[in-house]
């Protein structure tokens, strides 16, 4: 049997992926015969040689039942940045089909890998909730919008959107990221193209109060840079306005001692 290349619409095309998986399992296509790729023109040349199908065009066979605990892990692991996630997920489904007990084994290498991916995705979602920083912009008509720039490591933006809607339902806000942007107008969420850091507004006047607070709440008798970096990894610092004062605060401490 030749290899089959399956095309997903985007990094987060879970619908297309599950449809394709049902088809492939129904046809008995083993994992080593499937190549996953994205509908990105840059990728097409690489896969010319194989038979290609768009995931959402594949007739899915009904009746694929998977353990609920697997689906929970899979939905999160699917948002991981590693391209290998598609292969690991399909291989795991295939192996569960052979023997349902495999997913019950917490020492199974595929299960361990998927669990690790889902943990990393969940942690990134948590950090996005924590580290998005809104700045206020008032347009010509006097309407306020809150705009943030964020650079997540995994494909989590759409998955975190409901959190921001629940929290800031009455505000108009936009979160810009390199891959995708989401905007809430108080009633509808729109998902648009990626953006650049320069598209987000600079500091507004009120930000100075937050910076003043950050500097005052620090207890210099307790300097602990390692714990700070563990809770707030350095890769986020460039988008956190308060991070600019960390060096100054820590140096002030060292000089006193």
């Amino acid at each position, binding site marked *: 049997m030749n290899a089959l290349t399956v095309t997903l619409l985007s990094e987060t095309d879970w619908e297309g992926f599950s449809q394709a998986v049902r088809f492939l399992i129904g046809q008995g296509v083993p994992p080593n015969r499937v190549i996953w790729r994205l509908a990105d023109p840059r990728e097409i040349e690489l896969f010319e040689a194989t038979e290609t199908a768009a995931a959402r065009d594949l007739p899915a066979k009904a009746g694929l039942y998977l353990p609920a605990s697997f689906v929970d892990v899979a939905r999160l692991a699917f948002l991981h940045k590693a391209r290998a996630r598609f292969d690991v997920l399909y291989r795991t489904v295939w192996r569960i089909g052979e023997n349902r007990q495999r997913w019950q084994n917490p020492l199974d290498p595929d299960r361990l890998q998927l669990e690790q991916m889902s943990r990393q995705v969940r942690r990134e979602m948590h950090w996005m909730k924590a580290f998005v920083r*809104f700045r206020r912009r008032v347009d010509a008509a006097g309407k306020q919008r809150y705009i943030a720039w964020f650079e997540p490591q995994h494909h989590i933006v759409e998955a975190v959107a409901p959190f921001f809607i629940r929290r800031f339902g009455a505000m108009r806000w936009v979160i810009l990221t390199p891959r995708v942007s989401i905007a809430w107008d108080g009633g509808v969420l729109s998902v648009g193209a990626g953006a650049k850091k320069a598209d987000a507004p600079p500091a507004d006047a009120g930000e100075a*109060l937050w910076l003043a*607070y950050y500097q005052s709440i*620090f207890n210099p008798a307790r300097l602990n840079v390692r714990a700070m970096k563990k809770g707030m990894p350095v890769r986020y610092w460039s988008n956190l306005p308060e991070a600019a004062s960390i060096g100054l605060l820590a140096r002030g401490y060292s000089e006193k001692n």
Partner: protein
Amino acid sequence: MDIQRKLGILAGAAKYDASCASSGATRRGSITDKGLGSTERSGICHSFGPDGRCISLLKVLLTNWCVYDCQYCVNRRSSDIPRARFQIEEIVRLTLDFYRRNVIEGLFLSSGVIRGPDYTMEQMIAVARSLREQHGFRGYIHLKTIPNASEELVRRAGRYADRLSVNIELPTAESLTRLAPEKEAGAIKRTMAQIRSAHDESGEATRKPRSLPDAPPKPQRAPRFAPAGQSTQMIVGADGSSDRAILDTSAALYSAYRLKRVYYSAFSLIPRAPPGLPVQAAPLLREHRLYQADWLLRFYGFGQDEIVMPDGMLSLEVDPKLAWALANPSHFPVDLNRASKQQLLRVPGLGIRSVERLLAGRRVRGIRRGDLDRLSIAVAKVLPFVVLPDHRPRDGDARRLLAGLRQARRATQLDLFAES
């Protein structure tokens, strides 16, 4: 005085309170109306200071003026520091502004005592009420309760706040009398008891059985009361209390007032300290060990007697579980494939999560040495204390582990000096 200067003074004065937790609130959002904010079951740290502490809430005092003269407190009456007082509206505006920037989960409001406990408490409640009722604020609110405030005010505070806390301040009533002559342990505990009973009542009222078809209409649901419960804080190292005495006090508080957390705050040197206080700050490591011990007592089945050393102190050198294992070699080695859950929880390096994964794993097949790496278990710490089909500790392994930890500690200390 401008708002930025006030914020500097009143946040600076609040930094000695350790808690910044925003967890335990009932899950709620603001999507269905014009309100602002939401809470999840687990809190969110929106930032970390260079002191490694989570910044989750706008933590400020209403005022740092105070009629009391507690010796360990930077805001005591006799202290020569700049004073300030927020207007109610100023705190409300700051909270809402910070919240919309997504830098906080809510407000932790405390205060020096001005005029009297009731007056101060009323001012704090006014802030919470304005946030909730005028601005539809659904974020987290933690109010520090002033001991000796009237029960009626405690109950009102609990209607607006997710969490209430009263600081126990010091481990023993004698220390409190000596260092905080105007406070008394009786009043602190009375307020804790009021919070507990109001909390219990509201919980009971929401658990009424479903009414039958012909029953009279259901009674009104009791108003919510501080759904995230109450916590307290104890200063460590301002008096001579041993770790044993501190843990005993904690255990008594957990059970008498059903506290969610006891926070330990290592005594830090405060500007212009009066005589009668230690001249050295308590080691932060001692505070850390107390938290570890607190955890072992509450979640790992250890007793106070077991984890302190004969002098009543916790080991500073190694964590309390490892110290216990080193002092009790007769309990080891433990067979990872046969030991009970209770025994596994006592193995150094095994947390609750890893114990659960081991138990699940060994139902499928025998656990071997290589599986420990796969489950991301701290192998070096575990191996001296466990038996596996392909592993048996040699004599002296535990001693070598201790020596290795000592060496690593010396190396990090050198590293710290190199950095600064």
